[in-house]
């Protein structure tokens, strides 16, 4: 569906996107994950035709913006980072206006309004909508002309968890039922993990990692974490002999021990019997899998959501 080859975009001294190549097959749900300033928005806006790359080529369905702009505008649906609409225009009027830009009948705006569940807000001025409702309206505008490719730039940034879930649900439906190809940028790893069947991690205008969640974590952030607290200091050498032991990590507070192991399900029973044999009382215990945040930390030394 999308082919990028050697795409570069520079702003004065800053290179926002550097020699980036990527291929997105039809029907996939791709998440572009990265911290603010990673070049996600620039990349997406180049795919949307809103910015022109300095180098490289972008093709969508074999078409490019230079020659086939008009066709591509009909093919691509997009929602920008925080679009605000005309304030004293209602939801229905906004949709009718944009429907007219695509020569669509007004009945289509009722359909998309139903899809994003904004029927009740049909006569509400856009300025009175909540953040989540406004994003749903932006999504509705993007869906008007049934685009084969939907590009969403941070569709849930600044939304509360409930509103975020509602958008997620909508996007999943589009992916599964309409077979729409989706590309979404986000700096929430949870969002990318939950929604996308492929995740591209970006930093400083380049692709750091590319694959599905499991592949990425296995390759770049293997292992799981065990953290526990005992009243007495543990003999560390014994911990190192645990099955699947990978490393000992600096603990957050005194008395805590942080271990990285291959699989906590395997390492945990021997750890518990070890503690018992040492007659060390267990004050707290926590196990967690690695996340995309750990992965990003491993790759760049920085956290994702900073």
């Amino acid at each position, binding site marked *: 569906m999308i082919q990028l080859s050697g795409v570069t975009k520079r702003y004065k001294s800053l290179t926002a996107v550097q020699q980036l190549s990527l291929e997105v097959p039809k029907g996939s749900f791709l998440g572009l994950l990265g911290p603010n300033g990673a070049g996600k928005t620039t990349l997406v*806006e180049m795919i*949307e*035709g*809103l*910015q022109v790359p300095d180098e490289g080529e972008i093709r969508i369905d074999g078409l490019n913006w230079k020659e086939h702009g*008009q066709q591509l*505008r*009909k093919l*691509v649906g*997009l929602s*920008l*980072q*925080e*679009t*605000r*609409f*005309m304030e004293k225009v209602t939801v229905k009027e906004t949709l009718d206006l*944009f429907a*007219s*830009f*695509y*020569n669509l009948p007004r009945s289509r705006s009722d359909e998309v309004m139903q899809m994003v569940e904004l029927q009740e807000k049909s006569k509400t001025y856009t300025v009175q909508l909540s953040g989540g409702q406004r994003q749903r309206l932006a999504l509705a*505008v993007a869906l008007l002309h049934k685009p084969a490719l939907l590009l969403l730039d941070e569709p849930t940034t600044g939304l509360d968890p409930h509103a975020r879930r509602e958008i997620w649900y909508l996007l999943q439906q589009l992916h599964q039922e309409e077979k729409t190809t989706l590309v979404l940028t986000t700096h929430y790893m949870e969002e990318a993990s939950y929604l996308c069947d492929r995740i591209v991690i970006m930093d400083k205008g380049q692709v750091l990692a590319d694959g599905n969640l499991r592949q990425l974590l296995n390759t770049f952030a293997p292992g799981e974490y065990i953290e526990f607290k005992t009243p007495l200091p543990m003999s560390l050498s014994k911990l190192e002999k645990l099955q699947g032991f990978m490393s000992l990590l600096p603990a957050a507070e005194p008395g805590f021990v942080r271990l990285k192991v291959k699989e906590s399900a395997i390492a945990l029973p021997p750890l518990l019997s070890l503690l018992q044999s040492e007659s060390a009382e267990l004050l707290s215990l926590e196990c967690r899998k690695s996340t995309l945040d750990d992965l990003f930390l491993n790759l760049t030394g920085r956290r994702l959501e900073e």
Partner: protein
Amino acid sequence: MALAAVLGFAFSKSSPEKEIRVAWVSSDQPNDLNERLREISTVRLSMATESEALTLLKRGKVDIIIRQLGDSLVFAYDPQHEAAHQAALQIELSLLKGTNTVQIPLKREVIKQSGMRYIDFLIPGLLAMGIMNSCLWGIGYTLIDYRIKKLLRRMVATPMPKTTFLASQLITRGLIAAFEFMVVYLFAYFLFGVVVQGNWLAILVLFASGIFAFSGMAVLIASRAANSQIGNGLINAVYLPMSIVSGIFFSYQGFPDWMVSIIQWLPLSLLADHIRMVFNEGASLDQVAFPSLLLGMLGLICLSLGLKIFKWY
């Protein structure tokens, strides 16, 4: 700062040295009375026939008409016009204080026929300024606002042609401005009896060319501004100087001559002066053809320049 400089120029000759522009109407050859007026240093006398004097007054080129009737002088002006009233009092005072002891009988004539009063000067100017306001703020600010909201880029990401978008802005603005024009006009008509003595078609042509000129300027001003402070500043930088110097509230003839020669070609001056001519002097369509053409061309130049550098995203 520019504003202060402009106003400074305009009023630097104000009290006590403000120039008084007088039309002198007399059937006699220049005589003693005429000489006495000339002696007053602040008076700038223009010799005129009766009809010339009326035109000068209508255009704001003089504040007051003084007629010689035998031995006496008749001061004709609109007492509602503050500047004219002050001018008359000053001349009277100077004549009384003069070294020549012979008293001249003075009379006052209140001008109240339609087309000659201060309100007849003011209303056409306000109508012209309304057109400018409506376009600069209406179109200029809307475009900048849409750009800030990213609505502009959202719209051009659809298959809608950009020309359609701009044309819709122009048409909408034209209709709104026409409505505003009629509200002010009807208000002035019923309350003060301000009438259009000339051709309504001439008004329409001027109106349309004004809308086009100022819309073009608005597009140019709004072509790159990406935040409301810069937008505000740019619009004000065009709007404020013109609304002050272009002879809306007071005639620009009081400025130094070199400034007048520039000011009269400013778009707002062109529009205001000619709308005034149609209102008060009954100007015909062909008398407004040239200024309308100039305004139209200005609009075209600004529009094409603006579109060339326009930032849609």
